[in-house]
């Protein structure tokens, strides 16, 4: 029959982490047993594969980290980027202030509504 263990989250976390390491160890053992005996671990290291070209054809082997940010913003979130740029970066300080105060006002009103809801629920005896 199944063993059902109800515990606290910390113990569950600890058990799972130890379990991960245990299973990872078994996988490592299986890997070492099965691993190809003529893997070139001790052999000569190869040049990276860039469609057969030498590494000199690229400026660097990995892309610049800021490229990832701009790649995401300009390709994926292009319309969002354009919207925010046109909304905020008009060159007029009042546009920026209006935008920021609009959001700030929204947050203040949301916080007020939630606070009132919590107080009313508490007074009504919900909690």
């Amino acid at each position: 029959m199944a063993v059902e263990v109800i515990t606290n989250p910390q113990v569950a976390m600890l058990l799972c982490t130890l379990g991960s390491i245990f299973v990872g160890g078994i996988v490592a053992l299986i890997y070492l047993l099965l691993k190809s005996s003529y893997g070139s671990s001790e052999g000569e290291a190869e040049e990276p594969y860039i469609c057969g070209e030498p590494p000199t054809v690229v400026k660097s082997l990995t892309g610049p980290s800021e490229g990832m940010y701009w790649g995401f913003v300009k390709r994926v979130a292009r319309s969002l980027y354009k919207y925010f740029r046109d909304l905020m970066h008009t060159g007029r300080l009042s546009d920026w202030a209006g935008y920021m105060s609009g959001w700030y006002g929204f947050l203040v009103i949301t916080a007020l509504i939630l606070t009132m809801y919590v107080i009313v629920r508490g007074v009504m005896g919900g909690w």
Partner: protein
Amino acid sequence: MVGVLESLTLLFALAIFPGLVFIIALAIFNDWFERKVEARMQSRMGPTYVGPAGILQPLADLLKLFSAKEEIRQKYSLLDVAKVFAFLGIGAAVASLLFLPLSPYRLSAPYDFLVYVYLCCVWVPLALFIISISVPNPFTALGTSRLLSILTVCEPTYFASLLVPIILTTRLFRAQVPYSILSTSKLVINLWTYPYTIPLMILATIAAIVCLQAKAMYPPYNIPEAEQEIVAGPLTELSGPMLGLTKLLHDIDIAVSLLFITYVYLGGPYPFPHLSLPGIAVLIAKYVGLLFVLTTIKASFGRFRIDQGIKSILKYASLPATVSLVVANLIIMFT
């Protein structure tokens, strides 16, 4: 004596069932099923040579990579670090199975879904990311940046959709352990019988399937490893045993995610017990049905561009997940 028995059950659950041995077998079955069904849809035979109906072909491919193929060590690589992360990634995915009712050692704790998220949505993608960047190459870097873009959108979405059954079962049915995977798996079948919760469950399940399709890098989300465009993306520089380990990690991740969707969203074998013929039949039907949906989408679509991919995840996964989560909270608030 009880402690010894518990420890032995835990070790059995981790190493054999539903642990490493079972999950590798399931991953191999998944691979065979996908290849066979996809081949049939495209008027091909699919695997036929190894084992009955070619069912052992994925195992033969894996063993070939491990024991017969050469591991090419690239000049700038950190293959040993990549291997350690592959082992830990596989370990994390397998350890998360302890939370399912399928396991003979059923672990549950309040808010244990966060531990599941930590194991499967943090450790496994982190392992894939470290493996990818451990062998520098322009194609690898581009593929990894695409993978990260997809994960940035689909992991929070999966998390939001996972919260829907967990919150609803905890608050509506007074689960024995609040916000736990085990309690949710046992009670979620009831959510498919209430008219108010059925639409929410449908939306959350659709979101989870789209997220899994994207996370698994299956078409139309095979953008990170786009063949003919960026060679093989994160896999470009991998070969032999290291490629085998990475493929194994990827396949185990899909098998574990499918099992979690089968249990946490669709209720596993319930309302029948596990150890009954109808229970086993229902469990297998739900699992294979999900796998068939995944394979059909895989075989029906061409590859999206990265921006199309992200937009479709936002449209067909993030939006349904957010709507169902908000409505689920409103239902709880007013009941």
